[in-house]
């Protein structure tokens, strides 16, 4: 007799827990595929295609669905790889050099405007529509919107696009990180006294 009670109890519990689990699975279901969004939000959005995908989101989708490696993003560099590793629970691996090297300073495209012939090739290449211009008219880059992806440099028939590092100005300058333990963070500036020298 007891064996039946036991079986009934186990079955009953299984039913209840199953129902609860099922209910929760429906009630608290996570909508959509947020992992792709999460990965996408980590990627630097340069849309440069250096990873081999046409833009950041496709790469994010590939990482989420096809186990693509996390080290194919040179603009994001080490920091992005670390964040991705943390998010996806995989190991941090060094940047795959095949896809390019991490740049120290962000750069932005500049068109040498008197050399531009107005061929619109760079406009077509720009993934974020950051180049203005029309056929046979001079083009220019909206510097604030340029992601520094490099994609416009190759198509230019007259090589008039330069990738220049973003200049540091007073309002974008920040203090350096101190040198760390064992170091004194003092920068010495040699000064010559103009009055004495003359």
């Amino acid at each position, binding site marked *: 007799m007891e064996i039946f009670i036991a079986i009934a109890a186990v079955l009953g519990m299984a039913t209840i827990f199953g129902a609860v689990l099922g209910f929760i699975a429906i009630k608290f279901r996570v909508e959509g595929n947020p992992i792709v969004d999460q990965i996408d939000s980590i990627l630097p959005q340069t849309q440069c295609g250096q990873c081999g995908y046409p833009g950041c989101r496709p790469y994010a989708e590939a990482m989420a669905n096809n186990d693509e490696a996390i080290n194919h993003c040179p603009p994001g560099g080490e920091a992005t790889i670390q964040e991705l590793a943390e998010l996806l629970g995989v190991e941090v691996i060094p940047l795959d050099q095949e896809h390019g090297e991490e740049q120290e300073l962000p750069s932005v495209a500049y068109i040498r405007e008197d050399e531009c012939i107005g061929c619109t090739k760079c406009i077509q290449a720009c993934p974020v529509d950051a180049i203005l211009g029309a056929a046979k008219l001079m083009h220019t880059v909206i510097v604030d919107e340029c992601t520094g992806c490099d994609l416009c440099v190759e198509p230019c028939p007259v090589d008039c696009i330069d990738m220049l590092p973003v200049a540091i100005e007073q309002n974008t300058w920040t*203090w350096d990180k101190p040198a760390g333990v064992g170091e004194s963070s003092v920068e*010495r500036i040699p*000064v010559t006294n103009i009055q004495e020298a003359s």
Partner: protein
Amino acid sequence: MAFISVTSPHSHRANSTAGVMQQLLLATLPGVLALFWFFGWGILVQITLSVITAVLCEAGILYLRKKPIAFYLKDYSAVVTAVLLALAIPPIAPWWIVVIGTSFAMVFAKHLYGGLGSNPFNPAMVGYAFLLISFPLQMTTWLPSEGNFGASTGVENTLQLIFSSSPADDASNYDAFSGATPLDELKTQLDLDQSTDILQQQDVFKGFIAGAGWDWVNVAFLIGGCFLIWRKIISWHIPVGFLAGLGILAAAFSLYQPAQYASPLFHWFGGGCMLGAFFIATDPVSAATSDKGRFIYGFLIGLLIYIIRTFGGYPDAVAFAVLLLNLAAPTIDYYTQPRSYGHDKPNRGTAKKDS
């Protein structure tokens, strides 16, 4: 002429880590003297051995880690760890005890975690706990207190005890001198269903509060601790929390059943209580950081000490209580952040993404 470009502020208070550590060492002096007075030369030998071991270990590890040796040795942190460990172990423990303990503390508890400032556990207490678990006999054998700077034991005898190749060789000699601490004895007796009345009967308890000599040692450490608070080397929160935690539990239990449980005074002035409260638990590296957090941290250590002393397997429990709370310190920190200027309430827990 050459200018320098450097961030503000341009003026500094003349203080240094080395200064902090030196004052800490200075503050242990009353305690050292008291130990010396009651338990003889052993303590001085142990301190010497421990400091030499610690400095050598630190230098060796710094060399292996390719760090500037002199720069780090100058901060005195190794010496402080060594002295605190030496103060905690029995004065007549064999030399290899203190050497093993100190090197374990320096290598495993300190440098493997990244050196000064990065160790989650108090190195001295890790060394002590390691010794206590590994060599319980040697670690619980104390001399009976006598006074007179150990005149009756003598320097030679002490050295012989410490440096004899094995305690067993001199078993008779050893036994002749050694004895249990009052805390140990009380625990043993209470376990034998004796009542706390024995506190008035046996020799080992014949101090003014908590056992011959031990109460004075604790008073000495209390004096040293007050000096630290006065010099603002430590804040009052941890010691006060510590003593409050211990005292409240002890008072509650001894009021409930005085025959079974010793008084708060006995607990405060017995064993390593004051050393723990003012010198061990206040190690800032492994303690909680905010004022509130420090009080809670100290309080919990006090509670744990009483619980382990009374219900656990060890007569004194400063090391284990401190180590357990070292583990809890980050959590305490998360929940005791002060309310910053201009905020309605303090932040809690850890950072959330995009907060």
